[in-house]
């Protein structure tokens, strides 16, 4: 059974005074298997953000549905929503969204504290994770004291600490320099190799080339998809670039 099943999603925004209607998502269907690493690519306005917001249950589709672990998101009651997000989803944002009021360690603990866990338990979970992400020695620092790459790795730790079913990453390399980006993408690869399901929305060909599968979104529809298969990351990079070129020309992709 698929971990995430998205079927026939449609999202129509109505402008404030009811005049124009904008169809952000037309008809999006795809599924993600447990342990998969999927990237979603598309230009600005292709509906990426809308899709991610719906997957994160921050927004509701006009029609169609999303199943996580076989359970429709629409059936979760509003008051259970936060707890659901906390336990099943992990978020990594483009601009990190770390809170300046907390040390990095406390930022990572935030979801656990919200869930009411014991401090000893939290510390036990954090130890190996921090080691793994290479942030063990900066945990007592504050977000404004460390680099972007370090911030993003802490944000990843915050996403992973609840052991979520799926990590949703929104342009995770968007605010990073190339070195930090590479390191983060390698990390995503490793985490995925350990069995963590990742769904990443990105602009970056390089970021997408790390994923096992790339979905291309255009004008609110899944337009094409590329499996990486056995090819290297460099080969995949080339294939994605080619696809994007074709997409940009407006032609049909031919596989």
């Amino acid at each position, binding site marked *: 059974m698929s971990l995430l099943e998205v079927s026939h999603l449609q999202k129509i925004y109505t402008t404030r005074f009811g005049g124009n209607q904008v169809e952000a998502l037309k008809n999006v269907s795809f599924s993600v298997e447990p342990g998969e690493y999927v990237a979603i690519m598309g230009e600005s306005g292709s509906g990426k953000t809308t899709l991610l917001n719906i997957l994160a249950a921050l927004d509701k589709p006009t029609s169609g549905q999303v199943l996580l672990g076989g359970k429709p998101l629409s059936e979760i009651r509003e008051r259970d929503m936060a707890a659901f*997000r906390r336990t099943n989803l992990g978020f990594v944002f483009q601009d990190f969204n*770390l809170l300046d009021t907390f040390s990095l360690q406390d930022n990572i603990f935030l979801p656990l504290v919200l869930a009411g866990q014991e401090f000893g338990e939290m510390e036990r979970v954090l130890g190996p994770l921090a080691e793994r992400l290479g942030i063990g020695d900066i945990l007592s620092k504050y977000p404004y004291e460390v680099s972007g790459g370090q911030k993003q790795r802490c944000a990843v730790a915050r996403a992973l600490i609840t052991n979520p079913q799926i990590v949703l990453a929104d342009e995770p390399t968007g605010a990073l320099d190339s070195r930090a980006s590479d390191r983060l993408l390698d990390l995503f690869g490793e985490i995925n190799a350990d069995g963590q399901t990742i769904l990443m929305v990105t602009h970056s060909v390089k970021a997408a080339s790390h994923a096992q599968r790339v979905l291309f979104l255009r004008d609110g529809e899944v337009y094409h998809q590329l499996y990486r298969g056995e090819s290297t990351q460099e080969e995949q990079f080339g294939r994605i670039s080619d696809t994007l070129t074709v997409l940009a020309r407006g032609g049909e992709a031919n596989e």
Partner: protein
Amino acid sequence: MNKGRFYPRMALVNLARNGQFYIPYLLTVMGTAAAYYITLALAATPDLPQTSRYSYLTMFMSIGTFVIAVFAVIFLTYTNSFLMKRRKRELGLYNVLGMGKRHIAIVLGCETLYTAFAGIIGGAALGMLLQKLAMLLLCRMMRMDIVYGFYVSDSAIVGTAILFGVILLFNLLLNLHRIHVQNPMELLRESSAGEREPKTRWPLAVIGVAALGAGYAIAVTTRSAMMALGMYFIAVLLVIIGTYCLFTSVSIAVLKALRANKKFYYQTDHFIGVSGMLYRMKRNAVGLANICILSTMVLVMVSGTLSLYLGSEAALDEQFAGNLRAEVRYDPAEETPFDSAALSAIVSKQLEQRGVSAAPVAAYRYLSFNVNEEQGALEVKKYLSGSSSMVCAMTPSDYAAITGAETPSLADGQMLLFTDGAGQRRNLTFRFAEATDVTLTAAEPDSRYPAPRMFQPSAVDVFYLVVSNGTFQELYVGQQTALGEAGGELMQWNGFWNVDESAVQPDELEQTLDFTGTGSWARLDLDTRSSFAQEYYSLNGGFFFLGVFLGAIFLMAAVLIIYYKQISEGYEDRERYLVMQKVGMEPRTVRRSVNTQLLVVFFAPLAVAAIHVAFDFSLMTRLLTLFSLHNGTLTLLCTAGTLAVFGVIYALVYRVTARAYYKLVKA
């Protein structure tokens, strides 16, 4: 578009767009200007009668003028700097977009011009509207029967325009300087710079605790009113310093200690709350301290002057056993000594001849002199000094006349001792220069003998003594030897009659009554209760008016700071709560946590102010004895009442401003 009109227009648009901040600021300028105009105009009230009690009006209003002027300078400068901090980014953007600093200066100049125009004209107009109301209130409180018609005081308008013009100009220059020294990129970055975690400043925390402790210690240990007067401002200063340190560093130290306690800290509510408050404390500590100090000032001023005002009747009762009083100072050693019985009879008789019935109701005699306590003995002094006390001695029969208690029987060398703050003692030893010491021993305390409620306006502690006739004479002789000439006249006799007050004029009586046959005396003063009460109310009523008036101004300032605090926190918190919701915080947890934090931070200044007032209480009751208010219960009730009313107003302000805050956070 014409360039000449562009900048003035832009200034107007700026003010409108920053309306959330500028409208309250403008209202404050207007309110302060109105208050300033009113005090100036009342101080310059034309055609006042030339009596001393009307000169109090001018005096009180001049004090008010001075306080409001100082307050306006400090408060408007503070508010202006707050506003400019918020606008740094906007001004930086103008600079980046190609406006020269000169052009920004023109825009700021225009903004100041608009503010000055609206603030001063609006303030003067508001002042004129309220002037009559203030005058009516003042006349009522000061028991003045003349209610003046409406008049416009040109000099007050000019004075208001000058003061506020200068303040606003000064602030404009400050702003221009700020812009001048900053480069645009800095300006742009400023408001988005990451907020550092506040450091615990231990020296400040220690100073704060020490200053606050010292201030409280002074308040609690000061026993005499004279000392209270001298130490009051020192105590106030210490408490103000302590309050600032308390909010800026002690609070942070405490919160950090809470955070270090992991079991406590890592619970949902504490986690968000403690970290949020730590963050807030840095930004708002000074604002909170300001709110606290302003609140304390309002509470102290209003409760003090209110109890003074309400205590007036009781204080008058203490001084007037009957409504006509004669005070006579005399030397009993004169050849033809003062004959009190003759005076009583003469006054009654002569008044009855004029058709005014005047029955003598009470009379007593007492001896008073100053002493300094040296080497365990009370040494008689001619002049009063800061460490002096006063001795007020009377015989058992006079004591009975004053209190209505039964006449105590006392052996020579025994005393009944009543003190106003000096503490109870077993023995008192008097030292009179070369003469031998006189030591008195207190008789067993006896509930049959209440303290004599007689009036002794004194800035120092008073020992009220009841001694046998023989000891009374001994004291009299002793102090006379010690003081020589000056000692002779220190015997005082007070006599009281009940008369129809509307029929007598004390000043006129002093001139026209024939006192032959009363022996020789040094001074004789006649007063009626009502004439004295007028004098009394023009003082206490003036204080009360000033207390309430200045209290209202300070309250306005506190409200404005509270409002700014809520709005600026609303903007700060908006993003933080968005992020927390994204990582899985329930909206209702968000609301609950916001609520707790707001409540704690909001009511902390009020709680600290209440503690200040509690410590100030004993100091204030001492000070009030200077104005012959000896009613601690009344002062307590007034303080509690003022605190309750203030608390309600504060809570209302909280509700209104919290709504503005939630609107921001929810958006």
